[in-house]
């Protein structure tokens, strides 16, 4: 019997980039197939071909042994392909349900949108993962994690034969993943072929029997995961062994940043802490506990309603990010596409944006110097492909993130605030970024890392602040940091702490 | 009976402004509280401001208050309709309208009729249903300039026309009058007839291009004075002021100044102040119940350096000069 889904010799050429080269593998009905690879390996490109967004330069896609023409997303949907895109593809002004049914609305008599019916069906689909999401709410009022859940639920509505998921959990918590895993295994039981892309290897090992590993646009191998260790898979992805890194602390006693009684108009209240030179401070907490908002206050993006921020002992007031940047603070934001990059501009321009004064000491940009610095910083963050003049929108998410980190390196920032620094970033790059963060700390930078991935916090932080309901619920020093301890403080007291950092 | 659509240039039921008093006597006494409302195209053109001055002047003379409004720009058709409708609702006894186009004030004719308010169409665009029209013959503007060329440039030559906004009545008529008359003489060639959109800069550029392509050109006719003054600058910039005659239309004060300075060759003045006076007088005679011919023709004259002074004195002096012209049958 022919496999449900088969890629046969797929190649894709973009101007100046060969994103895919002769990719072939297949996925059987009822199989959950992992697709692994570093940033830029070509995973999203392959899935975008499957979902009709791109057309392959060569090769074909076969479903149940028959070649199919995937000329556009409608055609792909028609042959039973549903896809969750890596970048959230949503219309903020429409409701959750409208977004889920966009392009194929339920109607009454073919004329009017059957709103109630859509909302009912949407609620059903959402219920499997997060029943708290209101299908009638405008999508724009949801948080990233909820928006991602909506995206997943949308794919479930289709009752497709093939479901492709491109990093569906990048903003989700482990407990949300668990519910998603149940949904996915349910799909597989019903005979759906699932292609699952994630940089979180534990997830892939958790739900996939088989996986295809890609590197630089080619298939390295399709393997049975049961017979392999994570380490071996990682080695295949990155083409080398990743050294097991251990935490090392560079914190000094010198206070760099001192926050007292900080509050925002909306969520954050009474936050006080010190950040030392060379320290990596982790901030953990549930979704919506106010971590992002706290970072935005520190970075001058939002204005504080009360409290003080002192840098090197001097009290400062930020009325815009400019002030914070001048004081040596830089934010690597959570929503890269909307808050991080200027899509049409080159890597170099994106990098230089925060430090124009440095590159143009006399009003005119010193392009020679700019290029040198860009080359230097981008090789430090290991940009791939190394095309500094190429618009950043053409890079994979992980590489966009590297450019944003490079931005702060170029600006000589002393205090770096990372909001979910490795969301959507592969194991290799992740290790690079961890390493980078440690290097920065060792050089005397101070770093704040907000992360929903507890292993990440544990790996990096010298000290962890746990946020709950907009304020700091606990402070854990290195010796006390553990997943259990963090979870215990993150969850509102009235609930019984479950094992692991469960939320909701 | 249905009125035949008005053509102000050819209507037979007409009277020259100079004959009105002779035929219909002095202005009769008006009902108490008579007030007149007037709306014209735009105040951004001196011509229409002068017309308003004429209304005001005559209104002051006979003790009738006049409200004078204009649309915000030339071509603002619905805005002008709104203004005119406002005047009807406010209960003016007579309306003087200078419509943007032949049609845009048509509803006013009906509303005014229902309210028993006479309407006088003053100059330029012609409402076909208008029962009363005061103004000059648009075509005649062009004819007069053409005649000047035929008389003063007996050897003929190449001439060019810079037109107003495409499709506007006055522009079409003036252009046609000039073109037909000068072509009939057989000695002249109209080498260009292109739009200047009532705009000085556009006319300047067009004139520059025409002069460059036809170095032997002997004259320009422009549909208004603003454009003519733009052409004058282009002619000066090309160093051809002695060879190229430039004519405008309207007789605004800048045109007079330029004529006196020897730059603009001439303009066809249609005496807007006087036109305003005559128009309001006509309107008030209607209010008083007189039956007047459908068209009251107002004067115009070709102004050149030779006669500029004769037509640019005070209101009364000009009136006298024009009455003399009328008597002399010019």
């Amino acid at each position, binding site marked *: 019997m022919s496999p449900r889904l088969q890629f046969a010799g797929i190649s894709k050429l973009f101007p100046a980039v060969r994103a895919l080269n002769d990719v072939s593998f297949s996925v059987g009905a009822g199989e959950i197939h992992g697709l692994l690879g570093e940033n830029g390996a070509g995973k999203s490109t392959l899935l975008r071909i499957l979902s009709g967004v791109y057309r392959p330069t060569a090769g074909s896609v076969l479903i149940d042994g028959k070649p199919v023409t995937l000329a556009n997303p409608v055609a792909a949907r028609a042959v039973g392909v549903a896809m969750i895109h890596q970048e959230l*593809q949503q*219309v903020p002004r*429409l409701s959750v349900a409208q977004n889920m049914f966009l392009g*194929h609305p339920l109607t009454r008599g073919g004329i009017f949108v059957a709103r109630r019916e859509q909302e009912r069906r949407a609620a059903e689909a959402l219920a499997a993962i997060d029943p708290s*999401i209101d299908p009638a709410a405008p999508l724009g009022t949801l948080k990233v994690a909820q928006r991602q859940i909506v995206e997943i639920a949308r794919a479930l509505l289709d009752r497709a034969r093939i479901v492709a998921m491109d990093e569906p959990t990048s903003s989700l918590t482990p407990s949300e993943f668990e519910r998603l895993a149940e949904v996915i295994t349910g799909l597989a039981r019903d005979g759906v072929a699932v292609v699952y892309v994630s940089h979180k290897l534990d997830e892939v090992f958790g739900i996939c029997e088989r996986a295809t590993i890609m590197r630089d646009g080619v298939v390295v191998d399709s393997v049975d995961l049961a017979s392999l260790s994570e380490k071996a898979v990682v080695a295949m992805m990155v083409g080398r062994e990743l050294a097991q890194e251990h935490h090392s602390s560079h914190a000094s006693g010198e206070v760099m940043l001192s926050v007292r009684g900080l509050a925002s108009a909306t969520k954050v209240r009474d936050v006080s802490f010190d950040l030392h030179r060379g320290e990596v401070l982790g901030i953990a907490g549930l979704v919506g506990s106010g971590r992002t908002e706290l970072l935005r206050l520190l970075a001058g993006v939002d204005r504080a309603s009360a409290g003080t921020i002192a840098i090197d002992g001097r009290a400062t007031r930020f009325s815009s990010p400019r002030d914070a940047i001048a004081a040596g603070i830089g934010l690597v934001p959570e929503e890269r596409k909307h808050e991080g990059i200027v899509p049409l501009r080159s890597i170099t321009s994106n990098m230089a944006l925060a430090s124009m004064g440095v590159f143009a000491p006399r009003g005119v940009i010193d392009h020679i110097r700019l290029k040198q610095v860009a080359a230097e910083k981008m090789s430090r963050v290991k940009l791939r492909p190394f095309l500094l003049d190429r618009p950043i929108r053409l890079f994979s998410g992980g590489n966009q993130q590297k450019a944003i980190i490079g931005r702060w390196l170029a600006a000589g920032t002393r205090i770096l605030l990372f909001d979910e620094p490795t969301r959507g970033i592969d194991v290799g790059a992740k290790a690079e970024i961890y390493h980078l963060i440690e290097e920065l700390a060792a050089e005397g930078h101070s770093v704040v890392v907000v992360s929903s991935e507890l292993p990440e916090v544990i790996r990096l932080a010298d000290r962890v602040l746990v946020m709950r309901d907009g304020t700091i619920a606990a402070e854990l020093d290195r010796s006390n940091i553990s997943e259990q301890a963090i979870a215990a403080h993150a969850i509102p007291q009235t609930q019984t702490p479950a094992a692991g950092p469960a939320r909701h | 009976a249905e009125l035949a659509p008005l053509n102000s240039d050819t209507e037979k039921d007409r009277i020259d402004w100079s004959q009105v008093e002779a035929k219909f006597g002095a202005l009769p006494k008006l009902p108490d509280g008579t007030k007149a409302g007037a709306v014209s195209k735009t105040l951004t053109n001196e011509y229409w401001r002068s017309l308003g001055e004429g209304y005001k002047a005559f209104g002051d003379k006979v003790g009738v208050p006049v409200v004078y409004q204009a649309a915000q720009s030339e071509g603002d058709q619905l805005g002008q*309709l*709104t203004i005119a409708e*406002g*005047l009807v609702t406010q209960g003016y006894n007579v309306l003087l309208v200078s419509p943007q186009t032949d049609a845009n004030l048509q509803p006013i004719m009906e509303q005014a009729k229902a309210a028993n308010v006479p309407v006088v169409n003053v100059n330029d665009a012609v409402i076909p249903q208008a029962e009363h029209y005061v103004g000059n013959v648009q075509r005649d503007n062009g004819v007069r300039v053409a005649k000047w060329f035929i008389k003063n440039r007996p050897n003929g030559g190449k001439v060019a026309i810079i037109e107003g906004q495409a*499709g506007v009545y006055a522009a079409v008529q003036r252009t046609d009058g000039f073109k037909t008359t000068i072509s009939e003489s057989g000695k002249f060639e109209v080498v260009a007839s292109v739009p200047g959109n009532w705009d000085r800069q556009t006319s300047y550029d067009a004139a520059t291009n025409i002069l460059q392509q036809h170095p032997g050109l002997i004259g320009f006719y422009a549909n208004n004075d603003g454009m003519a003054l733009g052409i004058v600058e282009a002619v000066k910039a090309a160093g051809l002021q002695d060879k190229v005659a430039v004519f405008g239309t309207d007789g605004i004060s800048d045109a007079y100044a330029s004529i006196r300075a020897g730059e603009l060759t001439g303009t066809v003045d249609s005496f807007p102040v006087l036109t305003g006076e005559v128009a309001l007088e006509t309107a008030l005679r209607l209010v008083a119940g007189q039956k007047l011919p459908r068209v009251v023709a107002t004067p115009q004259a070709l102004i050149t350096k030779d006669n500029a002074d004769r037509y640019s004195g005070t209101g009364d002096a000009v009136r006298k000069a024009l009455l003399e012209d009328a008597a002399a049958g010019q």
Partner: protein
Amino acid sequence: MSDTTLVQPRAEFLRGFSMRDAGTLIGLVVILAVFGALVPGFFAERNLINILQQSSINACLALGMTLVIISGGIDLSVGPTAALSAVISASMLVAGVPFPLAIAAGFAIGLACGLVNGVLVAYVGLQPFIVTLGTLSTYRALALIYTGGNPVLGLPPSFRAIFNGSLFGLPLAVIIVAGVAVVAWIVLKKTPFGEYLLAVGGNEEAAYIAGVPIARTKIAAYMISGLLAALAAQILIGRLGAAEPILGNLWELDAIAAAAIGGASLMGGKGSVVGTILGAVILGAMRNGLTLMNVQSFYQLLATGLIILAAMLIDRVTRGRG
């Protein structure tokens, strides 16, 4: 999640009438109050009807413009589209063609003009502003060439009566446009097409991936705009009794102003039928009030500019950033 408040059903009416529309309404109320205080007779029934009638043509165009703007486009060619439709309908009427046929021909012209705009935007991928700037000249030129620049006169009185009558004391034009507004509201709020418009203007890529027919949605928006321009043309020639090739000069600016005052964002993805109608009435009331106050035209122009800015400011203040 504690936001259960959001799930409670709201009345359908309130769904249609957003916070943003409330801002526009406040703007209208302020302007009406000011004129009411300054102009005696401003609130007379006759004058209020005048305001509605005088706003109706702009409102009609602005509704089409709103849909185009929501789709992320703009239609500068509405005036010339109306002119072309008007002269062709009118010359057929004068030639004795039956009304329904002549009117249908006018509508067909409007649809065709919109189709050309839409195809150039959606399939060829040109920028809406520049496409409709080009067709603005082209359609106007066609109308002028077709008529030789002359107005088409002598429309049958019975035709004029269609668009010129009254019903329950309201001008038919007002009723027709109100009907159009209701349909537009339903289309935007209740039909897949309305969703597609919002999606295409709000996030074209997401809409494409979701399978929204991008090109067809955009083309339909321009065709509706063309159709409504043709309808405005019929109303106007009914009122004027003549069709001129230069009719509709600068209509696009008023229509865009009405849509923008009503909350449409020229970045696309946002706009309100109710707001647009309020915006058109704000502009109409302003013109009417200034005329009744006998404000000299230069100062009227000044007031026009300032009131547009003021309407936007009031709205801005009442709804906060966003």
